[in-house]
């Protein structure tokens, strides 16, 4: 059974994707999954070749058949999402506001509203230099990112089982909302990438609380730890106090940004630099942790 390692952060921009890129180059026998379907970036480091592309459709949208609309406005009265309005005596839908609940279609006395599937994204099975990868993109202003996250995870896990892989390494979304909940439920380990800033610490606490809520094992990494040593100490103490091991402390190193600019994992850009060495140590610590579970 492959183990799932999720890399998340709460706060955006702390370096999740750079960490996953480094792990991609370091880990053997793994499948990579980009579950930040809102703003997926891992492909920019791993240059996947798409083998299969699929539509993703999980939501519906109201479609009004204007020729049957009698202008009774009942649909407008029942819609809680302000998605319907009248133009020239006929109801129209604002597709961005429509939640897809279908109450309007049920209430319309003329049967003038039907609920239609929406293609809200795509997902891909790909090959990279570092192994197979599952990734996706959500359409702009689309809903159901949580379901797309769940799908990417499911496909990555299937692929890992089939190929006898040891790990699924997941690049997670920021925040603690629906996509993160989909990404974290039942993973083997959530590695939280933090930074020694007031905001980083605040967001780390909330994302750890979320992991607790779902009973998930946690480890922490502190990126750019030398930016503020006092806050780094504070994070370490906080993590120690709650039994979350700090498995890595990555120094501020311009090589990390330069690797992103070059579009390659850090390990391919500057394998002997300070940050790269720390990534290596961190990966060994993570493996040790996963083995012990």
């Amino acid at each position, binding site marked *: 059974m492959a183990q799932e390692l999720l890399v998340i*952060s*709460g*706060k*955006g*921009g*702390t370096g999740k*994707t750079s960490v996953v890129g480094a792990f991609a180059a370091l880990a053997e026998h793994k499948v990579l999954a980009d579950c930040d379907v*809102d*703003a997926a*970036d891992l492909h*920019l480091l791993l240059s996947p070749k798409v083998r299969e592309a699929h539509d993703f459709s999980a939501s*519906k949208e109201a479609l009004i058949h204007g020729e049957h609309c009698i202008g009774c406005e009942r649909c407008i009265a*029942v819609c*809680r*999402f302000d998605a319907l309005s009248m133009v020239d005596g006929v109801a129209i839908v604002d597709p*961005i506001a429509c*939640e*897809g*609940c*279908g*109450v309007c279609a*049920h*209430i319309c006395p003329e049967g003038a509203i039907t*609920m239609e599937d929406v293609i809200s994204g795509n997902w891909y099975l790909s090959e990279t230099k570092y192994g197979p990868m599952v990734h996706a993109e*959500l359409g*702009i*202003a*689309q*809903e159901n*990112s*949580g379901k797309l996250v769940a799908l990417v995870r499911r496909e990555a896990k299937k692929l890992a089982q089939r190929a006898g892989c040891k790990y699924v390494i997941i690049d997670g*979304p*920021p*925040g*603690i*909302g*629906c*996509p*993160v*909940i989909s990404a974290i439920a039942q993973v083997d380990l959530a590695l939280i990438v933090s*930074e*020694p*800033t*007031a*905001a980083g610490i*605040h*967001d780390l606490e*909330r994302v750890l*609380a*979320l992991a607790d*809520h*779902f009973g998930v094992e946690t480890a922490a990494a502190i990126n750019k730890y030398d*930016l*503020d040593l006092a*806050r780094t100490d504070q994070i370490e103490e906080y993590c120690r106090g709650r039994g979350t091991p700090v498995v890595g402390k990555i120094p501020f190193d*311009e090589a990390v*940004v330069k690797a*992103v*600019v070059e*579009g390659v994992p850090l390990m391919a850009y500057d394998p002997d630099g300070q940050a790269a060495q720390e990534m290596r140590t961190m990966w060994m610590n993570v493996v040790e942790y996963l083995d012990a579970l």
Partner: protein
Amino acid sequence: MILTVASGKGGTGKTTLAVNMALLLAETMPVALLDCDVEEPNAHLFLHPAIDACEPVTLPTPVVDEERCCGCGKCAAVCAFNAILVLGGRALTFPELCHGCGGCALLCPEGAVTEEPRGIGVIEAGWAEKVRFFHGRVDIGAPLAAPVAAAVRKRAQERQGLIIVDAPPGTSCPVVAAVKDSDYCLLVTEPTPFGLHDLQLAVGMARELQVPCGVVVNRVGLGDQQVAAYCASEDIPVLLEIPFDRRYAECYARGGQLVREFPELRDKLRKLWLRIRMEVEGDGPGAAGH
């Protein structure tokens, strides 16, 4: 005017920009700051507002009267979110999946379903010096950030003057709730392929919502030139470039206020505000970028 600060990519400096513009502009005009990143709100860490009001954000969620329920299954058939299941003639509800559409209560033939408010988060209001402050926090484990973000965003209605909205990262539902019906959207990015990729998504979102947008490039000097080239090709104005400066990063790290420590940024942000006003009031290049 409602000015929303968004980004696509996280950690590019949305909150820094929103907070410091609010502090600076509040010296001369009425300003409210709405932190709509309800999953990970951070603006209060820089503003330290004195909170004077707190109210829950709720969603109407079904409650089934078992005596009246005939087990017909209509509610479960109506629910698009699998929040009601009928098993063995009994209706079971899953409140955390409910979107509050009210379909079950409306369509139950026995009138057995009523709705009760269920807390999904809170909104707090306060003052940070002259800045009127609002933020929201979605409850840990509650998957519905968008209604909480929308509830914070609604507070714009009660304010005059400039309203600065700090949006969450990404481009999906909670971001849409923050950006929709804004007069202008500032997209903060960084000059890297990640920043560029996510900026393109954010521009797509702003255009979909028909909100004019302009770009602020943060940490200039650390990356490459692709963001500038993209903005030029798409006719999107780059309104401000902030150089990478370790002193700014350290000030941010400790929750400091840049406009109090770096006079050169005061000038830059004031010019940024004048540019935005021109874009909104005149037919600037931002309008063409629609």
